[in-house]
């Protein structure tokens, strides 16, 4: 099968490495020449690099269509060949990876363009324009890594990309590493993301080792072909592989229990939140499960576990999203929730539904985040305007006070917003599109993909269906809440009053994304199942059965009614009587329930109490007791040092002074004594010397005489 794949490789597919190289070239140009380039040129280079990668992805899609969707393997580089371990950098072009590349590069390119405008203001607002170039370098690096991840033909290459995007995530969350709470808040957030991902990566690594041990290879084709056989002979090992892989997924795709890093990751600039922490990187886990479908389908218990994790995460995160006031935090928890939908779908075996939701979610969640970024910058402009005017006409003392107020002003807090509908009309409309799409109102994209997941769940896994339905209700509610709080009612603060619309370089990508979010559902309309047929080629290759369920009126109607109902509920609470200044949230009447939602169910605190504090205690114990007192004080000082001291004392006093020195001195003294003796012979009298010669003569002749 591999051979036939290689033989059918057309020249078109040989272009696939450029999907990695174009962004790589872009980032190299920006690294090397970026210092002398204008901001626009830097942004243009980066966007062009990403756009060219998108072009390659489109070409691949055309090639696949011509090839009737047959997977193609393009060998590129030999990497590591040790014994049985054969790791190559091989590109795999099939419909699944192609969907990922298309979605990532399309959304990525739009976000690059948006970032040209966004970062222009952000670097000035944060006070360090020099980091403009760095941002685009990181962004291109991310595209490179993501492409490696989704186009790799083995778990090893997937892991390379997996770690690479993790690195980019770390770098970009900590982009303003010197900002944030206490000056290190952002750095701490980045660290948290990194550590949480390490825990997941540990799982993925173990899964990889087990895979290699059980299958003898890390190439997808080899592993998936053997999967049914190995699952028969070694079910325990395959279960372990899937569960460890699930651990990796929970890390990367922010599922229970490792989701805690994603809300903190909002510390990064908003385009980063949109690209990495909403649209693309976090879906890598979903992609991993879909990619490993041939393994997962072998074990129903593994599938159930994944589905339950996804379903629980979806509901849990949705409840937290309801209680948030930070515009980006709401979206962050919404992202976790939606990722839960996807993980649940791919876990149940509804791979197409999961991937479909992945794509539509990439559109509308990127749209939402970017719009939120637009809102935030609108607020910042308003804040700047207010501060500027104060300087003109107010007293110095008052100005100082106001400035202090302005300093603590949070442009991301929804309670500070309100009534932005008229201030930022374009942003409002695109935000509304994204929110409605997310809420699952027909005929927008979110409706179709979410409905398909719910439909599959209703057939495959009833408990998960219930969880997801509840999550969907909450989704519609918190999006309605957000829309009403941000855009309707009266402006609640002076900056909101003076908020300004964003420039076209930001709004045009938003409009494009809005169109995609609106019509994205057309990819897989019921009855047509375009997307399903497209992905079928990938999954059928390894005998993973896909079954397109017929459109179900009851499920769709139910979810639509529930979505509209919760939007209405949100209107009743937040739209009918808009929040006034300093007015508490109406949901506070729920008491502890809302407090819990607002405080994220204290999960961070619980983690701190259960794990991190214990870990710190252990670290202190190890440092104080084990390292310092045992190793340092006792072992090093008492045992090693004392032994060494006594040994060196012994060597110095006994061996060196007593032995070697005495020998050496003895030699010297002996020589001296001998010399002192011989010296007496050297009388200086010639006659004595002559006498000794004469003695010699007598003795020698005497010897001859008695011989």
């Amino acid at each position, binding site marked *: 099968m591999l051979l036939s794949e290689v033989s059918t490789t057309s020249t078109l597919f040989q272009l696939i490495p450029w999907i990695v190289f174009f962004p790589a070239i872009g980032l190299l140009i920006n690294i090397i020449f970026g210092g002398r380039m204008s901001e626009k040129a830097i942004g243009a280079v980066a966007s062009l690099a990403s756009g060219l990668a998108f072009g390659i992805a489109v070409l691949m899609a055309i090639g696949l269509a011509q090839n009737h969707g047959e997977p193609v393997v393009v060998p590129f580089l030999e990497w590591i060949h040790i014994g049985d371990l054969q790791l190559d950098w091989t590109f795999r072009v099939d419909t699944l990876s192609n969907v990922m590349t298309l979605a990532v590069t399309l959304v990525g390119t739009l976000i690059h363009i948006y970032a040209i405008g966004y970062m222009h203001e952000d670097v000035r607002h944060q006070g360090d324009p020099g980091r403009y170039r760095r941002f685009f370098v990181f962004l291109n690096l991310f595209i490179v890594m993501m492409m490696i991840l989704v186009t790799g033909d083995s778990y090893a290459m997937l892991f390379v990309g997996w770690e690479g995007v993790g690195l980019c995530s770390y770098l970009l969350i900590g982009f303003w590493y010197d900002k944030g709470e206490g000056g290190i808040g952002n750095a701490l957030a980045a660290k948290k993301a990194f550590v949480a991902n390490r825990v997941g990566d540990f799982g993925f690594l173990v899964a990889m080792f087990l895979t290699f041990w059980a299958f003898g290879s890390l190439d997808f084709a080899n592993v998936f072909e053997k999967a049914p056989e190995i699952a028969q002979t070694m079910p325990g090992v395959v279960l372990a592989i899937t569960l460890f892989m699930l651990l990796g997924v929970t890390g990367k795709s922010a599922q229970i229990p490792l989701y805690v890093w994603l809300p903190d990751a909002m510390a990064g600039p908003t385009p980063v939140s949109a690209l990495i922490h909403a649209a693309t990187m976090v879906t890598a886990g979903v992609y991993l499960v879909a990619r490993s479908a041939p393994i997962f389908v072998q074990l129903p218990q593994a599938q159930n576990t994944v589905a339950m994790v996804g379903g629980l995460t979806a509901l849990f995160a949705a409840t937290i999203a309801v209680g948030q006031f930070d515009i980006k935090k709401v979206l962050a928890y919404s992202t976790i929730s939606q990722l839960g939908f996807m993980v649940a779908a791919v876990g149940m075996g509804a791979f197409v539904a999961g991937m479909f939701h992945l794509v539509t979610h990439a559109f509308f969640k990127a749209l939402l985040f970017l719009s939120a970024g637009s809102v935030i910058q609108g607020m910042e402009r308003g804040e700047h305007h207010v501060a500027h005017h104060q300087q003109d006409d107010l007293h110095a003392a008052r100005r100082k006070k106001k400035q202090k107020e302005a300093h603590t002003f949070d442009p991301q807090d929804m309670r500070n917003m309100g009534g932005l509908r008229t201030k930022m009309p374009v942003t409002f409309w695109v935000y509304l599109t994204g929110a409605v799409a997310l809420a699952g109102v027909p005929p927008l994209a979110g409706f179709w993909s979410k409905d398909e997941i719910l439909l599959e769940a209703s057939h495959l896994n009833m408990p998960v269906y219930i969880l997801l339905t509840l999550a969907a209700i909450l989704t519609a509610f918190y999006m309605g809440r957000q829309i009403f709080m941000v855009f309707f009612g009266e402006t609640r603060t002076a900056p909101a009053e003076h908020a300004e619309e964003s420039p076209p370089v930001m709004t045009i990508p938003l409009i494009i994304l809005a169109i995609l979010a609106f019509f994205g559902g057309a990819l897989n309309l019921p009855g047509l199942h375009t997307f399903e047929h497209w992905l079928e080629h990938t999954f059928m290759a390894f005998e993973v059965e896909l079954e397109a369920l017929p459109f179900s009126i009851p499920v769709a109607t139910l979810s639509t009614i529930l979505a509209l109902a919760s939007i209405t509920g949100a209107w009743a609470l937040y739209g009918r009587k808009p929040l006034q200044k300093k007015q508490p949230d109406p949901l506070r009447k729920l008491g502890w329930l809302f407090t819990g939602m607002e405080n994220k169910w204290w999960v961070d605190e619980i983690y701190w109490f259960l794990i991190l504090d214990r870990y710190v205690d252990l670290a202190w114990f190890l440092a104080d007791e084990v390292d310092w007192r045992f190793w340092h004080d006792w072992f090093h000082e008492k045992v090693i040092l004392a032994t060494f001291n006594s040994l060196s004392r012994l060597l110095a006093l006994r061996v060196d002074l007593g032995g070697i020195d005495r020998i050496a001195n003895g030699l010297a003294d002996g020589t001296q004594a001998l010399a002192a003796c011989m010296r*007496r012979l050297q009388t*200086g*009298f010639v*006659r004595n010397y002559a006498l000794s010669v004469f003695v010699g003569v007598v003795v020698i002749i005497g010897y001859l005489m008695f011989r």
Partner: protein
Amino acid sequence: MLPVTYYVALSAILFILGAVGVLIRRNLIVIFMSVELMLNAANLAFVAFARYYQSMSGQVFVFFVMAVAAAEVAVGLSLIVAIYRARHTINVDDLSEMKG
């Protein structure tokens, strides 16, 4: 002709006398003369053996000894003169700078 042994015995006696002279006298010049005496004792033995073996080589060697002695005396005496000028003594016991 008398047996060679007689001459050899005489030669030995003269040689020993010369050697004893070198050892017991303190005067550089006398020591030097004792050395000459030893040389002559050896020459006498040479000439006696030349006679005994009827070979001219013994006598020829005496010539060489004489030549060496002449050179030695010339150099030695000039050294003695030099030493005397420098130290105003020809007592060998006064020349003990080599004492260790």
